[in-house]
Structure formats: C-alpha cells, structure tokens
C-alpha cells in the first residue's frame, strides 16, 4: 500500500503545490503540461459528474481508480482542489485529504502572512509537515513489489 503523489490546485487552475513519494513512471511531458492536464481532467470530471448524476448529489466527484492506482479528490467550497494518487489498497483517503487541508494547508499556508493567497506554496515548513504526515499514514508502506 503506497502513496504516489499529491497535487493542490486553486480555483483558477494553477498548481499551488506538488509532491511525490513513490512515482515509478514519468509521464513524458513537461511538468507544466502535466499540471494543466491534471487540472483539466479533474475539472471536466467534476462537471460531468455534477451534470450526469442519476441521484441527488452529496459530495460529487470523490475518486476514480484504474487497475493500478486510485486518485482521491477533495474540493473545498473556496475552490481549492486536492488530488492524491495512491495504490488500490487505499479505499478512501478523504479523511487524510481533509486533514491535509484543515490542519496543514490552512494552519501553515493560509494563516501565514508571508504566503500570498493563491500563489504557489513556498513554505518549507508546510512541505516538511506534509511529508511527516503522509509518511505517518498507515497505508504509506514500502513499495508493493507486486503492483
């Protein structure tokens, strides 16, 4: 069970933060384009889900999975979007994403007067704390040799 990487986007589509832990395959495109692609996909999926939902919506788009990995998504009403890629062993990382938002992002980035709002996160403390938190998650194990 592993965690691959994390993206944080703001409402306008710019990537505020990216961090990876176990990524074994590079996408082959420059990072700028990768972020745009990821944001475009998340945005389209979210609006697709909102539009085509056969029942009343509660949370909207929450996650998708392939045969190799699962992407977990959290969006705040203020437009901040977090996307976490894990392997298939993790059923729901919503709590982890909520913790990253409430206890790490808000406390260390939003409340920091030196961090301009909606600018890429430069804070070293945030990166360190996030890293410590992700490594402490029960599903952050060594790379699964079978996956």
């Amino acid at each position: 069970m592993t965690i691959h990487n994390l993206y944080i986007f703001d409402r306008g589509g710019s990537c505020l933060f990216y961090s990876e832990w176990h990524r074994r395959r590079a996408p082959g495109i420059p990072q700028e384009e990768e972020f745009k692609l990821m944001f475009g996909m998340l945005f389209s999926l979210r609006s697709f889900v909102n539009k085509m939902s056969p029942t009343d919506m509660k949370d909207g788009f929450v996650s998708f999975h392939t045969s190799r990995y699962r992407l977990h998504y959290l969006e705040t009403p203020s437009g901040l979007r977090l996307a976490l890629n894990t392997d298939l062993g993790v059923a729901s990382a919503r709590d982890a994403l909520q913790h990253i938002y409430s206890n790490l992002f808000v406390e260390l980035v939003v409340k920091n007067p030196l961090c301009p709002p909606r600018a890429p996160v430069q804070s070293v403390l945030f990166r360190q704390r996030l890293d410590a938190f992700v490594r402490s998650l029960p599903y952050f194990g060594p790379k699964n040799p079978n996956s």
Partner: protein
Amino acid sequence: MSRQGGRGTESKKMYWYLPFISPSASLQLMNSELFTLTYGALVTQLCKDYENDDDVNKQLDKMGYNIGVRLIEDFLARSNVGRCHDFRETADVIAKIAFKMYLGITPSITNWSPGGDEFSLILENNPLVDFVELPDNHSTLIYSNLLCGVLRGALEMVQMAVDVKFVQDTLKGDSVTEIRMKFIRRIEDNLPAGEECCPFPFPWRLPMLSFQL
C-alpha cells in the same frame, strides 16, 4: 476616542477552538478586552495616518477584505460546512456559525427583501466597540468597517459577490448595530482556455466546459 471601562467589569473571555478534527484540540482563551483594545489602537492609528474619515473607512474595508479572503479557509476547515444552496442558507451560516465562532455573538437575521437577495444582521452588542465613543470630529467614521470587508472578502472566495454596509451603529446613537447585506451576483470560475488545459484533443471536453456549474 476611548473612555475608561468600569473597574468592576469582568473581562469576557472569547473561546477560540482549535480544529475539531485534531485529537489534541484544546481551548485557547483570549481576553476580549485585548482584542477590543487592539482594534481600537488600529483605528486610532489609521485616523492619524489618513486625515479624513472616508479614507479610513476605505482602508478598513480593504484590510477587512484581505482578512476575509484568508478567514474563509479557516472557517471552512473548522466548521466543515458544505456549500450553501441559496442566500438564506448563507445568511444562517454567517449569523449562527461564523459570527459565533469568531466574535462570540449571534446576530439575528431580519428584513429580508421580497426578492430574497438582501437581509440585515442585527447585532445587539458589538465586541469591537466595547469601550468606544466617537468624538464629534469623526462623525462619518464607520468604526467597525473592517467587518464589512471581512464579509465581502470571505463571500467572494465562495463565489458570491455581495455588498455589505452598516445602516445603524450604536456608536452614532442608534439602539442596535445593523449590517445590511445584498447579494449582487454569483462569481463564475474563469478558467484557462480549452487548449491550455488539455494539450490532447478530447472531443468531449469542449461541450463540457459549457455546462453551467
């Protein structure tokens, strides 16, 4: 601008809660007098820096806006409130959760306009003005204008453009403090153009972007 508070007054404590999610959450208490006096010192300094009241009002609004833009994230993180479906729900959340969380008071909501897009918040007591009297030469100063900026900034980050202003103020002799909030419009996301978002041609993407969100 301030007068002495009564010696016998008990200082009220404001309860600031750490996020509910944290298992080691504890209460942090802050003396409300400290908060009131800090705000008073801020307004006094602004009055010294800017000669006329209008400029001070604008500056307070701007500062409030910058606070509101960040405060909304803290509010969303702590209160776990989801997106509001209409302006009435927004009014309830502002009065019953937000004001309670940050200022310890619960204003009442009244005077809804027939279209449901304007309402008033009535504050019986305003913690910002506890020891304050307005002198005569500052009769057009809106002392608590920071609150208007905060509300405006916070709602703008959840895609609502609102107009907020004080219509009654206890500092000017009215019996209550009344803040009027008017919904102007919903702010739509502006996204980068289709090509920038996605370098690969997905034929289904363009129709999707035109969905109303």
